[in-house]
Structures are given as structure tokens and as C-alpha cells.
């Protein structure tokens, strides 16, 4: 450990960690944001994330190209999305229950097919060193950024713009906010919702690939720690606004990086407690934002478990 940084290492490590840890949060929450805008909740994204991680790692190992792995993960995610979307389009089916079932299916399948890939080392994604060798190694490590993070960062404002300025975006919001209004202008809600859930799965799959192909950068069964589930809370936190998802993901990522950062300067007491920070944050946010007296502003009106 380079003592010259001292306690300054903590915020730096948190910042660097936040970027790394937030990327899967960002992708899953952007995906969930699209799905929820169309009026569906997909709780199965945790399963999609884990399956995406496995699929990405396996394809990268077998083809030697981590980018093909990312693509495979995204496509596998879309398939899970389509499955969720179609099942939820059946009468009297509840999205939350289907989501939980698909979460278990996704993780189960990932563990089943992923067994042979736990040992082997697959090629992983490169990181950009934004310091160009000008900084000391500790700082350079913090300035190393994965292209996927930049893609996610760019996707958020593009999505926000698209929701306001494109036909696709307006139709998705319309379907999510008033199925009746959509029906009145001859738009069938079902295909739009299936497509939005598939797009959500696409993003979540990429989030999974980031886990196995960049950070931590290996495949094992304990890879995900519930990022897919927390993303749902995160979307509420971000009030269904893609740009706010970036900030929300960053806050959650920072909370996730707290434990390792403190450990790196020798604070080992309560390590597990600090690691629980993101979960604690989830609880606090839900408690603060959900009120008996108020409904959430900006929530798509078709969204709900009471339907």
C-alpha cells in the first residue's frame, strides 16, 4: 500500500470503485426503466444478469472475443425479456410472480450451464487508462475506465431524449401510462410491452457481462450480489428518469465500494457491515420515498401489482 495517499485513498477508492461497481447497476436500471415505462415490472432481471454473466464468459472463452461475449449476454437477456413479456401477456398473470420465477430459472440455468466455466480463464474486456501513464499507479487504477461504463453513460441521455422525441419513446410511455389511451388510437399494448421487456433484458444481459468480463472479471456462482433486484429499487429512486438512473447507480456503486475502500486503508472492523451498505441504502430509500400519504410522482400509471 502506498502510504503517501493516506486517508485520501478512501474517497479515491470509493470513487474508482463506484465507477466499476455502478456499471451493472446502471445497465440493469436502464433496462428496468424501459420495461417499467411500458407498464411492466420485471423482477427477473437478477436471473437475467446472472445468466448474462455466464453466457458472456462462456462465449468469450469459446470464441476468444470478449465483445462477442457481451453481445451473446445481451441477446440471452433479450430472450429472457421476451419470455417474461409473453408470459405476462397471458390473462390473469401477475408480472411480479413471473419475475420471481424467471429470476430463479435464470440463476438456475446459469449455474447448470456455467459449471464447466468456473475454472478456465476467459479473455476479458480491456479498460482505458485515462491518465495515460501520467499518474502514480494507485491513481491510474482509479482512472481506468471500461468502455461499457461509457456506453451506459451515453445511453442514459439518449434514452431520455428518445422517450420525449421519438415515436418509439412516446408509444412506450403511452402504453405504460394508459392502456386505454393507446387502444383508442389503435396501438396494441401487448407487443409494445413485450418489446420493452426484451429491451430491458438486453440491457440487463450487458450488465451481467460486465460482471464476468471486467469486474470482478471471472465467472462463479457468487458473482452477483442482488444487483438485479436492487435495480428495481433504483428505478424508483430515479423516478423513472434514465439520467437520474446514472446518479442513482453511482450512489449505489459508491455504497458498494465503501467496504473494500475502507479495507484498503486498513479499516477491517465491521467489513461485512460496510459491505451491507447498498442493501441498507435500498431500505432507507424505499422507506423515505414510499409514503402512506403520497403516491409517487412520475410513476407509470399502468404499473402495479394490483392489476
Amino acid at each position: 500500500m502506498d502510504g503517501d495517499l493516506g486517508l485520501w485513498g478512501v474517497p479515491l477508492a470509493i470513487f474508482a470503485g463506484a465507477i466499476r461497481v455502478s456499471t451493472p447497476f446502471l445497465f440493469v436500471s436502464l433496462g428496468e426503466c424501459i420495461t417499467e415505462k411500458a407498464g411492466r415490472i420485471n423482477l427477473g432481471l437478477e436471473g437475467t444478469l446472472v445468466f448474462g454473466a455466464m453466457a458472456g464468459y462462456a462465449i468469450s472463452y469459446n470464441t476468444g472475443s470478449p465483445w462477442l461475449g457481451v453481445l451473446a449476454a445481451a441477446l440471452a437477456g433479450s430472450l429472457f425479456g421476451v419470455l417474461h413479456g409473453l408470459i405476462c401477456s397471458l390473462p390473469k398473470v401477475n408480472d411480479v410472480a413471473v419475475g420471481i420465477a424467471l429470476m430463479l430459472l435464470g440463476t438456475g440455468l446459469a449455474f447448470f450451464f456455467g459449471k464447466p466455466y468456473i475454472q478456465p480463464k476467459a479473455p476479458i474486456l480491456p479498460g482505458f487508462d485515462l491518465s495515460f501513464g501520467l499518474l502514480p499507479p494507485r491513481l491510474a487504477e482509479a482512472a481506468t475506465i471500461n468502455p461499457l461504463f461509457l456506453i451506459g453513460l451515453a445511453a442514459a441521455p439518449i434514452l431520455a431524449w428518445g422517450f420525449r422525441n421519438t415515436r418509439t419513446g412516446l408509444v412506450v410511455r403511452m402504453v405504460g401510462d394508459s392502456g386505454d389511451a393507446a387502444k383508442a388510437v389503435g396501438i396494441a399494448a401487448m407487443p409494445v410491452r413485450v418489446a420493452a421487456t426484451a429491451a430491458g433484458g438486453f440491457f440487463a444481459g450487458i450488465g451481467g457481462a460486465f460482471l464476468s468480463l471486467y469486474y470482478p472479471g471471472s465467472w462463479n456462482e457468487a458473482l452477483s450480489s442482488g444487483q438485479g433486484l436492487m435495480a428495481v429499487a433504483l428505478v424508483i429512486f430515479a423516478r423513472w428518469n434514465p439520467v437520474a438512473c446514472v446518479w442513482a447507480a453511482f450512489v449505489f456503486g459508491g455504497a458498494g465500494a465503501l467496504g473494500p475502500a475502507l479495507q484498503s486503508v486498513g479499516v477491517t472492523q465491521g467489513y461485512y457491515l460496510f459491505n451491507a451498505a447498498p442493501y441498507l441504502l435500498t431500505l432507507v430509500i424505499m422507506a423515505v420515498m414510499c409514503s402512506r400519504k403520497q403516491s409517487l410522482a412520475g410513476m407509470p400509471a399502468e404499473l402495479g401489482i394490483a392489476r
Partner: protein
Amino acid sequence: MSDALSLETVGLTKRFGAFTALDAVSIKVRAGSLHALLGENGAGKSTLVKCVMGYYHADDGDVLIGDRGQEIGSPRAAAALGLGMVYQHFTLVPNMSVAENLLLASGKVPAVVDWKAERAKMTRFMDSMPFRVPLDRPISALAIGEKQKVEILKQLYLDRRLLILDEPTSVLTPDEADEVLGFLRGLVDQGRLTIVMISHKLREIYAYAEEVSVLRQGKLVGAGRTADLAAPELTRMMVGVETLAQPAARAPKPAGDVVLDASGLVAADDRGRRALDGASLAVRAGEILGLAGVSGNGQRELVEILAGQRDPEAGAVKVHGERYAADRAAARKHKVVCLPEEPLKNASVPTMSVAENLALRRFDLAPMARGPWLSDGAIRRAAEKLIGEYRIRTRSPATPIAELSGGNVQRTVLARDLSEEIDLLVVANPCFGLDVKATAEIRAALVAQRNKGAAILLVSEDLDEILELSDRVAVIASGKIAYEAPIAAADRQEIGKRMVAH
């Protein structure tokens, strides 16, 4: 600008299973006329217009638009012909702005929207309208009357040539209704538009429609020029030979004590905006206080406070001079009964049986409860008695209440609540969406309670209902009581003005 279209249906028939909702109905609407469609709930008016709009496919018969037979397979096909409809429930997207709603309604949204050009077009359109709504405001932030105006503006923006309106004025104040209908009437007179208007309000039919068709039980029972048909004639066609319940004669008013005394109530709505802003009112025994107002002015929150569903931020509610906690014990002690609006949603458990719903007030008392056990027999016997007394039409006491018609749900809830001894009754929109027969029955029951000495707070968006039933009239606007007068001194125009004044 295109010209008005004529509409004709020939022997239109629509069956749902064994039930014939529409039985060989032939109506004729001239191009450039305003045609009223009259009938009770379930008479087939909505089915008729939904067949025309392509929502339903008729089992038999034809629809002629502009004298040509048309297969209208979907709402989109209807729109392509120049047909538009304003539904009773809103088809606006709540979290989107007025501009976004106008654009989406056209069904021709470009892949990437040029907002600058679209907005310029919308602004030009708004400038040509007598009433306008801010383009950037999200729909959820509009008052209900404004939403109805947006619905109508939306159809006009799309250059419709035939417009069907399903009870367009039910949420408007009398002045707003005249403004909207007067403007539409003007477009009809210019030959730009044909209008079919479903309505219960005879006053509007006589003022704005030149022809009327009356439906009863899926059949056309009468049609003609409004100038040739007297009001009693129309009512008789609409309800048939059955006589309506007459409101019980008002017993001369005994000077009662103040039962409900609410003062300085302040409360926020579900979105955290201040809905009640220092509202105070008092209701005496043996009187009906009618509280009028355009919905969304705090009446819902007021009723929720009285029902114990919402805590006020400030102010006090007293019943019989004591602070009222609005819980089950306090309600029993002070004999307070609340009848919220939309009884299926707010006053019953939809999946529970009629008998169980009838028992909700007393199931925890003898004879329905014996210690921790419930007596099914006692619950069923009590239910059978009430079902008979209140003529609730249900297959059996064990039928889930959600399967009953709206009128029968309301009868069930009234049977449960009015069979109690009542000192204070709070009712909200008790007749909303009910047909003429059920409405007359329920109003008679309210007057009967008043005569027995109950203090009644009647919250209603239907000004006619308020003026018919109340001993005193008050107006709530922006969360404050804006007007109060005994019925003899109440002035319809003044009330309408206070309802929209801020």
C-alpha cells in the same frame, strides 16, 4: 376544412353470449346536426356507438357513413373515415403533457418528432379555440373539467367530421358545459361537424340537440325532433312504464343540534399538494348539507378525513361536540356512517360475497359473532332479510359482490349502512353512473334518513342532485368553502361561478 358526415345504422344487432345488448337498432343522424342519444344505463347506447367506432363488431346490420355502407373493423379504421369519440372515461395519458397527448392522438407520429414545428401548429390551433389549455402542462396536473376540454380539443385538432360524445358534460360546471356545447353547436351550424351526444341531461338535450333517439333494453323505443317531444314523454320512453320512486315528502324541519362540526381542516392529497386549505363546515340534525364543487377541489380528501382514511394536518372534527377519532369505536358510538364514492372500490370487498359485504359493519358483534367464531347462519339470515327489503338483484347471498351491476352494488352498500341507526351520514356522489330508477330510489332513501333526524353531508359533483336534495348548499373550491346558503336563497349561476373561482 372537410364537411360534416351523416351516420345511419340499419338493424344493428350485437349479442354478448345469450344476452342481446343491441337488438336491430336503426337510427339516422343527418349530416351537420347534433343528435342526442338517450337511455338508461345498460340500454345499449355505449354498445351502439362502440359498434360504430369499430370497438365491437356487430353480429348483424350495417353502418352507413356519408350514405355509404362501411365495414369499420377497428377504431383506427373509424378514425381514417373522420370519426372520433370522446369517451366517458378519459383516454388521456396522465404523465404526458397536453402537447404530447395531442400528437399521439393523431396516430401519425413521425419516427423523430420535430417539436418546434408541431408546437407551432398546436399553438395556431389553440389560438383558434374559445377555450385553451397550456400545452406543457402534464395531464395529471389538470382539473377534471380541463381534462374533458382537452379530450374535446384533441378530437377537433384531428379534424373529425363526425364526433361521438359520451356524457361530455358530466364533469363540467353548468357554465363550462354551456361554453363547450355552445362552441360545438357553432361548428355544427357551420356544417363542419356532425355530433352524436349521449346524455342524461334533458336540459342540455333540449338546448343543443335538434333530434333525439331513445334506447331501452337494447331496442330503439322512440326518435324524433326535440321540439316535438315533451320532457315527460322522453322520460317515459327511457324508463318504460315502471314508476320511479318519488322522494319522500320533506318533513318540516325541526331545529336540530349541530352534529358534525369540522373546522379549519388542512390536508394534502396523494401527490402532496395542499387539497384542503382551511375548510370549515357544520351539519345539523335533520338537514342535508349539499357540498357542490368540481372534482379535485378537496372534497375527496374531506370525505377521507371523515371516514378515517386520512389524517388532517390541521383542524378539528367534532361530532356531538366531542373530538371525533373516526375509528370503528368512535363511529359506532356516534352513529356515523360514511358512504364513499365508487362503492365497489371504496365501500365493499369485491371478491367477498354479498352476504359477507352486508355483514361488514356487524360481523364482530352478536349474533353474527360468538366469541372468536362467526355464525354463517346469522350472517346469511341477516343478508337474506336485507336483500329482500332493498330489492338487491343477486343470484344468491353467496355471489361475489363484484358480479353485481353498479346499481345493485350501491343498493347493497346502502342496505348495509342505512339499516343502522344513523346520526351522521356522509355520502359522496351516491348516484354517479347509476340509471334513473336506481338514482330515484337512492335519493328517496337519503331524504327518508333526513326525515328520521340524521344529519347528512352530501358531497356531489352533480349540481342538480344537490339542488334537489339539500336544505343548505355549500361550494368547495380550492380546498375552501367558497359559498354557503339555505336552499331557498341558493342561486344556480352564483354556485357555478363560485365552483370555478380561485
